[in-house]
């Protein structure tokens, strides 16, 4: 199949709109999760753990952790959407099959799904930012610049998740991805402590993971500073997004167009 078929068209918007329509129906429980979870994290870690940690990287621990939680929540939300929810649509509900009986192509479906993962990530991030601003843990003039970064991070995590979904035979398969990718990133990519506290080899590994770069961009932006090496961090996230998208398109085409 020629690679130009990977380019999505306007149909991707219809897919995005479909997912948004379903989300709106489950608005209350969904938003409760978006606001409730980060509130618990902020209280437990920011105040509980923060009481013993005091300052980290020159800022109160709750400030340090709030930006980390924004980044990790984008990862978690986009991954979950791209794995479990997307797999349900593809496998259990045959939604992709229904879509393919219309002028929509695999690229439209994939692009719409990845974009929706990013939007879900953004929704959860904004919820956390609102809660954290209330606690004074997020502030400064650059918060608004964090939003496009959050969307980009959401695209890369959503894209990666959909690659896994395109390969998955059952929901159990996703445990590998969580244990081998999502959880390690959550713990070792600078969410809870600065990367520099890790041994050098672990830092090297962390440097190639997308969450590290999302944190590196978001922490300064959410605490009133401008990030360094913006091009490098953005480039890595962009690269993950593109590679995951093309790979996901190939795998999904192979799976759906047999």
């Amino acid at each position, binding site marked *: 199949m020629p690679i130009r078929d990977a380019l999505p*068209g*306007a*149909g991707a918007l*219809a*897919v995005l*709109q*479909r997912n948004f*329509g*379903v989300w709106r*129906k489950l608005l209350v429980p969904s938003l409760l999760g978006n606001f409730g979870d980060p509130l618990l994290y902020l209280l437990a870690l920011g105040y509980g753990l923060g009481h013993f940690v005091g300052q980290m990287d020159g800022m109160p621990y709750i400030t340090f952790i709030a930006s980390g939680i924004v980044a990790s929540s984008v990862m978690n939300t986009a991954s979950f959407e791209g794995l479990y929810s997307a797999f349900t649509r593809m496998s259990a*509900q*045959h*939604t992709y*099959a*229904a*879509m*393919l*009986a*219309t*002028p*929509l*192509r695999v690229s439209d479906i994939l692009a719409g799904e990845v974009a929706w993962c990013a939007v879900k990530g953004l929704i959860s991030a904004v919820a956390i930012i609102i809660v954290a601003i209330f606690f004074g843990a997020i502030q400064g003039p650059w918060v608004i610049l964090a939003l496009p970064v959050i969307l980009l991070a959401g695209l890369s995590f959503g894209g990666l998740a959909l690659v896994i979904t395109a390969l998955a035979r059952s929901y159990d398969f996703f445990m590998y991805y969580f244990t081998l990718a999502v959880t390690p990133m959550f713990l070792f990519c600078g969410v809870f402590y600065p990367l520099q506290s890790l041994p050098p080899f672990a830092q090297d590994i962390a440097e190639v993971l997308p969450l590290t770069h999302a944190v590196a961009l978001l922490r300064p932006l959410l605490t009133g500073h401008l990030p360094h090496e913006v091009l490098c961090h953005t480039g890595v996230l962009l690269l993950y997004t593109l590679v995951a998208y093309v790979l996901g398109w190939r795998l999904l085409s192979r799976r*759906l*167009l*047999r």
Partner: protein
Amino acid sequence: MNPAFLELRALHKRYGGREVLRGVDLAVAAGECFALVGPNGAGKSTTVRAIQGLTPTDAGEVRIDGRTLAEMGRTARAGMGVVPQTDNLDPDFTVQENLWTYGRYFGLPKTLIRQRSADLLEFMALSGYATQPIHALSGGMQRRLTIARALINTPKLLLLDEPTTGLDPQARHLIWQRLRELRRQGTTLLLTTHYMDEAERLADRVGIIDHGRILAEDSPRGLIATHIPGGVVELRRVDGDLPDPQDLHRQWVSLSERVGDTLICYGTDLTPLLAHFGDDPAYRWIQRPASLEDVFLRLTGRDLREETE
């Protein structure tokens, strides 16, 4: 006959080492209803997928209104409606939201979608359920909604893959009525089914497909006339033993077949056969006109097919 609206030429498809389509040729005229009947795994669904361009074929081509799928690209499916074998309505949406969402996949304008949706719900006798969730509908209603959904883009070609499998007789009759009405309005229909009565009632022409090849193709009556001489008598022994072990029936019938405990006899004049066995208390018999099912079973054999598709 009109020139072919849908044309399949020498379609070949292989999955691994298994040849699913081995040169399928068929032509459906504009406004015609064509039924593709065949046992499980005969290649019906693969053919339907190939017509939509959803399965890369190894050889052959599909033409719609004279143009190949490759030439048409994504516009091909814009002019088709598809009723899939597996229900895939959106369970999170209401009845009308399902239609609205589907209309957006075709890039139709909102006002048109709303209007069409209301009309189609009316047409499919679902108007009272517009705001109901999908799970509140019976199986037959869900099928009707799936058909309504397939019509949202006013397709010229409607593909139906086993549209009434698993439905009760009332539900099937309502669907058949609507499909005939669509045909009268000029929609070209291609349906797959393994219900012979469905093919007989709906189709102008029937193609019998097996092992990836079309074995016979004609009007239902034409197929029966060609392949089954006259009427049918089925003979069975009350005690379950082999009926007519001495093959006496051979002298009175043109064709016969043994299927398990049943002897099926075909012939133009079966009175002598009934004169011999009719009053014998050891026998049970029924006499009936030949049907498409007889043709189907004669051409595809009587062995049981397990689901492989």
